């Protein structure tokens, strides 16, 4: 029974963002530094991802793209700088807290529990099995073929199916921000097109923001609203996805 004296109680949950954070970018990195051992991989990264935007982060191997995603998710500790989600610093937050607050992650290395079923891989994205039917229905809108094969082991799927499962799992909790690490690597054009369609639909229908780490320039620019190139742990160039984008990115990716 809603309390009539309190107008806030009538508003639906999740529909009213905090007034102070409404205009803040979904993700903002300032002078971010992190790395492994004595070595810094990120040397002061600054970038912003806004709501309902696909932001493509490109760069050659070893430039720090994956480390950047892991630092945002708290898997690698930041050494300096700040990471803000909707205006609030999330430095030091655990991956569990960040995932619960609306971060979805599609990792590149060892991304699936290959000995577990499709169903169990998807269940592990949720905190309660009660959410399973609804979440399954949601991701099946993009990739319906899972529904008849929920008992199949993830390791027996084809390469393209595995990538679709990784993306589906990241979408299970209806994230506000998706972190995607080189999902198009080694995929056939038909599968890349399905993944691109799913990302566009999440952006356009749910306002999901996507930070897309990619080496596949054609795929990245086919979905991105803005882009940046990471070089030696810092942003080398960035811009809108306009007529010059392709040439500018290519100039940075050349040896």
């Amino acid at each position: 029974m809603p309390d009539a004296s309190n107008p806030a109680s009538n508003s639906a949950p999740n529909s009213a963002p905090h007034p102070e954070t409404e205009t803040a970018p979904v993700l903002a990195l300032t002078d971010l530094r992190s790395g492994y051992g004595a070595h810094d991989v990120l040397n002061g990264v600054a970038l912003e991802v806004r709501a309902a935007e696909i932001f493509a982060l490109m760069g050659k191997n070893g430039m720090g793209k994956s480390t950047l995603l892991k630092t945002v998710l708290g898997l690698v500790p930041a050494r300096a700088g700040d990471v803000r989600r909707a205006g609030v610093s999330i430095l030091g937050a655990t991956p569990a807290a960040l995932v619960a607050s609306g971060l979805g992650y599609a990792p590149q290395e060892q991304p699936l529990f290959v000995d577990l079923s499709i169903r169990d891989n998807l269940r592990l994205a949720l905190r309660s099995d009660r959410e399973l039917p609804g979440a399954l229905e949601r991701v099946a809108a993009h990739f319906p073929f899972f529904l008849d094969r929920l008992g199949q082991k993830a390791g027996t799927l084809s390469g393209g199916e595995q990538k679709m499962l990784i993306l589906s799992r990241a979408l299970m909790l209806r994230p506000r921000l998706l972190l995607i690490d080189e999902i198009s690597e080694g995929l056939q054009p038909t599968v890349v097109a399905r993944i691109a369609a799913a990302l566009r639909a999440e952006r356009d229908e749910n306002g999901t923001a996507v930070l897309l780490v990619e080496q596949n320039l054609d795929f990245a620019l086919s979905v991105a609203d803005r882009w940046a190139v990471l070089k030696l742990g810092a942003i080398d160039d960035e811009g809108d996805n306009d007529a010059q984008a392709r040439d500018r990115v290519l100039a940075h990716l050349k040896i």
Partner: protein
Amino acid sequence: MTLALDMITTAAILFIVASGLLAIFGVLKIINFAHGAWLTVGGYCAVVCAQAGITPWLSLPLAFVVGAALGGLTERFIVRPLYDRPLDAILATWGLGIVVGQLITLGFGRDVQFTESLLPGAVSFAGVDYSLYRLFTLAAALVIGGGFALLLDGTRLGLSARAVIMNEHLARALGLDTAKVRAATFMLGAGLAGLAGALLSPLTSVDPTMGVGWLVGAFMLVMAAGSSFAGLAVACLLFGSAQVIVSTFVSPILGGITVAVLSALVLRIRPKGFSNV
């Protein structure tokens, strides 16, 4: 027939002792060398119950709860701070085992103590009279093994534990609270060590070093089992049977080291042990 029953019940006892150690090894990737100490604590829970005149049946849940509580404290204050230094964590559990042994000696003295059997007497089984209590340990092992199977395959905690066993990095990246999974597993493993101590007390005797011998055997069995409870069951059946045969027909002293020697041999030939059975 008696020999066959001895073989099966010995395997059951080994399984009871080693299952908690395997649970911790699977999830935390460390060997908890305080396992023997928690087992001894469980044995003394049975002694305390006997001295206080409480029914010995109560000593089983009591030993589990005491073991789990001590395990929770150990995980929080000794193992967790050494998360990034697994070798140091293993050494720390070894040291803790020594400390606990000394504290028990201080509290109860060095004397060997005996407890009443929960189920005295023998039953007629397949033409022979056999100790009812040893048959009870077989049932207990089946309950523990079945419990683990249900827990791992039928609950979210089990699914989370399997995820941590298979790929802890990925489990963390998906937002699983891996610290909670580790703590829960450590408490469960230590609780099972305590339960094993209380279960064993009527079969052996209780003294401050009772856990040490069991620890060595359980450690070798866990190494041979890989990270699988089915593997542990196979290892216990094979090596437990071998122990009974060697003890009966060769010498009880050689029988005592059979499990350790056979485990070492199996690992030399098959480094993954029985993990794929």
